């Protein structure tokens, strides 16, 4: 994923003439008030929604008929979106099964990815037996099992409690470092975006557009110490300021 450019406009003005280039290996947060079209933007990148005008350019060679690079994208939804009738193993196996890979051939691969998210002991559990945070881990494991180049996350931890969310944030950061994957992370949390990303795209509503776009490179390793550092607080303040600007630009009704 070297140069992803997408330019689109939408008739219902969910998004109006929005352009964004994501470079390989970036961790981009899409931040904005509710209704600014950040989830819509993410769905359009995944070619899950129709585009009125504009197009998405991919550097990848293999583009499917639907307009997305085959097998290079994964999506983590706001809900865990697991199949309740399948075990944790079965849920993670799904993307590979749809590619026609036999279960015996990929068993080790699946167990490995379950180990990465700390669920190796729950391979045979059903989703209903898991906590909200664990279900989300399964969802992340399923997204990573295909070894995608781009991971799209749509407010994945919004419904979780603060402690679980922080732990999952750390997990996502670790996985990002380990795999070198590109992440586009939609969130409405200033703190989450400041903690996770090395680039923040602030969106405004009516019409949905990029309001601000800046890098957030830090010298510190992002861990618990970073969370209490001045650098983090300054980043939060900067992001918060940009968000206020975006809300103001849209009429300040939020």
């Amino acid at each position: 994923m070297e140069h992803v450019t997408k330019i689109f406009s939408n008739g219902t003005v969910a998004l109006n003439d929005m352009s964004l280039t994501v470079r390989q290996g970036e961790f981009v947060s899409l931040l904005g008030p509710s209704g600014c079209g950040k989830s819509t933007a993410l769905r359009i990148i995944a070619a899950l929604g129709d585009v009125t005008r504009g197009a998405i350019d991919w550097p990848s060679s293999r583009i499917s008929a639907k307009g997305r690079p085959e097998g290079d994208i994964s999506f983590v939804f706001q809900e865990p979106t697991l199949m309740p009738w399948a075990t944790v193993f079965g849920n993670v196996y799904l993307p590979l099964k749809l590619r026609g890979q036999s279960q015996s051939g990929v068993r080790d691969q699946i167990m490995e990815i379950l180990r990465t998210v700390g669920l190796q002991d729950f391979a045979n559990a059903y989703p209903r037996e898991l906590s909200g945070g664990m279900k989300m881990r399964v969802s992340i494991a399923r997204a990573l099992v295909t070894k995608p180049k781009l991971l799209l996350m749509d407010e994945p931890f919004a419904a979780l409690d603060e402690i679980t969310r922080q732990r999952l944030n750390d997990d996502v950061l670790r996985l990002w470092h380990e795999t070198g994957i590109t992440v586009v992370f939609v969130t409405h949390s200033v703190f989450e975006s400041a903690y996770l990303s090395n680039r923040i795209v602030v969106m405004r509503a009516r019409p949905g557009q990029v309001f601000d776009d800046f890098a957030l490179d830090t010298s510190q390793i992002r861990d618990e110490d970073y969370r209490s550092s001045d650098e983090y607080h300054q980043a939060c303040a900067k992001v918060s300021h940009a968000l206020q600007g975006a809300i103001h630009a849209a009429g300040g009704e939020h």
Partner: protein
Amino acid sequence: MSDKVSAIEHDGSAYARPGFWSRHGETILKILIPAAVLALLVGIWQAIVVIYQTPHYILPGPLLVLEAFFEDWGTLAPALWVTTKITFISLGLALVGGVGIAVIMVQSRWIETALYPITVILQVTPIVAIAPLILIYTPTTQIALLICAFLVAFFPILSNMAQGLKSVDHNLLNLFELYGASRWQTLIHLKLPASMPYFMTGLRIGGGLALIAAVVAEFAAGSAGAGSGLAFRLLESQYRLNIPRLFAALFMLACLGVAIFALTSFISWLFLHRWHESSLKREN
């Protein structure tokens, strides 16, 4: 409760080992209470017959019915077998047809628009009204009964299945699309398993209705002779004022109905108990 108290009195450790009663008490009560109520009702029935000296051609006592049940077993058993066969074959056909048409219907809105009114017309027309007509066009009464029972059992399975196929989580559909799943893969790996609870509802309703339709259709069609089912034996007993036999046939029908209910509930449990909310015991 009293057992717990006595356990404390005897060895002072009520928590140490839960007794047989506290482990299985609820299950036993669940069987004992309905059985006791049933026995009580049969007892009252017998008492009424004895006290009022009711003639057995109006209301036979339970003992007389039991006697008829064993004496007329030779006549009733083949009839029971015929009714059972018609019920299960028609239910089987309704399952295949209902699921098949539901799957076809959800493939395209046009097919649904074309087929749905026909299935509704077939459903809302009282089956007894069509039975004589079906009888004209079919070679044997058996086949006519089969068609009637099929028509009745078919609709709940179709409508539940169609509802289930359409109620799949949209994000899961998105997920399948994202991974480039074919229409066939989406059907097999997502839509069919997701509509399992709906299918099971259709199965339980359809199972009960198939039996009812098999009996009602036989009343209307009026079969006779060796190939006749329990409904014919019911009518025949009524004409001959052989009321004990009528009760015995009724008893058989009730048992068949209970058996079908138990079977469909068991199948439902078998498929859903590991994951579906309906089969789970609430723990909090």
